[in-house]
């Protein structure tokens, strides 16, 4: 590991107002390459909003987001994804009408073919490489048996894992996870933690939002704490765990 960490994503002086509500103010966040960066904070602190600003879902009121030297602000969401940023949403966004397998294959086409390609004379089922990769991922997540089911019929925990597969198959440089294990059983949460650790060893950068401290402390290299739109603390997990402000605003008696 080099001594000067490479900053892959930089949110610089980001403000976001919803009408009168200040959802984000003066956010300055730097994400180091290859690290897992957790963002925690009370409900309504602005965590999801921050991710939305990064992926271009909502424009910031002021400030900018820079990804690997490219200014993301003003770019369309699909362009931002094409640069290598994928996101898991807080409420699962999957293709409910498609089979589980196709759910995972579709993002792989976006990665390979770019934002648009009129590939009307190729055949999906003959894209062996992509298919194999998708099946492999599903196997890792224990969903291979259900690959031909409609994704809409999955339970909520399964939907979350499916969405994670859809992001992972894109090999993003930066993966944004908004409560990836919410509603997952303890067993599946543990599997997911293992998987996310495995990816980390492959050098993918991750930003993770979680309320489950077990997950946060198992995965995070660094933690930022957001409250009322501001970063109130930032640092290594051990420091955050004992930070009195954080305890009061967020952890309560649950710091375990």
């Amino acid at each position, binding site marked *: 590991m080099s001594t000067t960490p490479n900053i892959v994503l930089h949110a610089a002086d980001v403000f976001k107002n919803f009408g009168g509500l200040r959802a984000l103010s003066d956010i300055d966040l730097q994400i180091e390459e290859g690290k897992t960066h957790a963002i*925690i*904070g*009370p*409900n*309504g*602190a602005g965590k999801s909003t921050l991710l939305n600003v990064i992926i271009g879902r909502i424009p910031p009121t002021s400030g900018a987001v820079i990804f690997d030297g490219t200014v993301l602000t003003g770019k369309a969401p699909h362009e931002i994804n094409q640069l290598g940023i994928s996101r898991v949403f*807080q*409420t699962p966004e999957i293709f409910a009408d498609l089979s589980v397998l196709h759910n995972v294959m579709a993002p792989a086409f976006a990665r390979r073919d770019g934002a648009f390609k009129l590939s009307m004379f190729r055949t999906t089922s003959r894209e062996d490489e992509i298919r194999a990769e998708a099946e492999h991922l599903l196997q890792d997540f224990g969903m291979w048996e259900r690959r031909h089911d409609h994704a809409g*019929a*999955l*339970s*909520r*925990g*399964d939907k979350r894992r499916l969405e994670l597969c859809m992001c992972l198959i894109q090999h993003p440089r930066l993966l944004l996870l908004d*409560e990836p294990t*919410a*509603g*997952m*059983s*303890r*067993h*599946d*949460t*543990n599997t997911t933690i293992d998987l996310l650790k495995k990816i980390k060893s492959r050098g993918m950068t991750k930003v993770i939002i979680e*309320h489950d*401290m077990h997950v946060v402390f198992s995965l995070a290299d660094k933690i930022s704490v957001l409250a009322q739109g501001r970063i109130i603390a930032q640092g290594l997990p051990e420091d955050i765990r004992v930070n009195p402000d954080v305890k009061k*605003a*967020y*952890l*309560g*008696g*649950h*710091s375990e």
Partner: protein
Amino acid sequence: MSSDVFFELRDVHAYYGESYIVQGVSMKVNKGEVLALLGRNGAGKTSTLRTIARADNPGMTRGEIWLEGQPVHAMKSWQASQAGIQLVPEDRRIIPGMTVEENLILSQVAPNKGWSLEQIYSHFPRLAERRQQEGVTLSGGEQQMLAVARALAREVKLLLLDEPYEGLAPVIVEEIEHIVQDIKKSGITTIIVEQNAVAALKMADRAVILDTGELAFEGSAAELLADAELRNRYLAI
């Protein structure tokens, strides 16, 4: 059937279209008791609660549900609610386009009111502060409070909580835990579904584990907490 059984499921089967989800569940709940309904993802917990609340989906094909001698299985969801079964659904289901207060008023339109608005606001001061805000713009924790409050605004005999802690910050989990404790104290019978089994078992008198739509365990909460084998197999804790 013994007369002190307050609520009972007898061999309940339910389908989502063609797929068979609830596969013959039977259980009994006594008055004033808190029952934890546990199980892995996709085990059918939500489906069971929705069957009890008489949602159209999953469709119940066989079995009986009795609440204080009333045949709940013959009811529609609105009749079940009027009979005192209140569901706090898993994604909270705050009605979009309506304020907090409108959401509460709405739950008092149909007969058998529970708490008055004043009572609710004194228990949930946060909701009182935000009564004119649109419900769906509340943060996750506040939405959860609203969902619980909405159930309490109706007469509750049996409260069904589906993952009430999901997505909530630890401080708020504590807060909701207090509310559930209060509810328990007031003698309302509750079935709680929760992934956070430890938290659920802390409060529960008894526990039931579902596995692929069938009952895998039934017993006291303490028994379950003590049995490492079971815990490991079904709950991974």
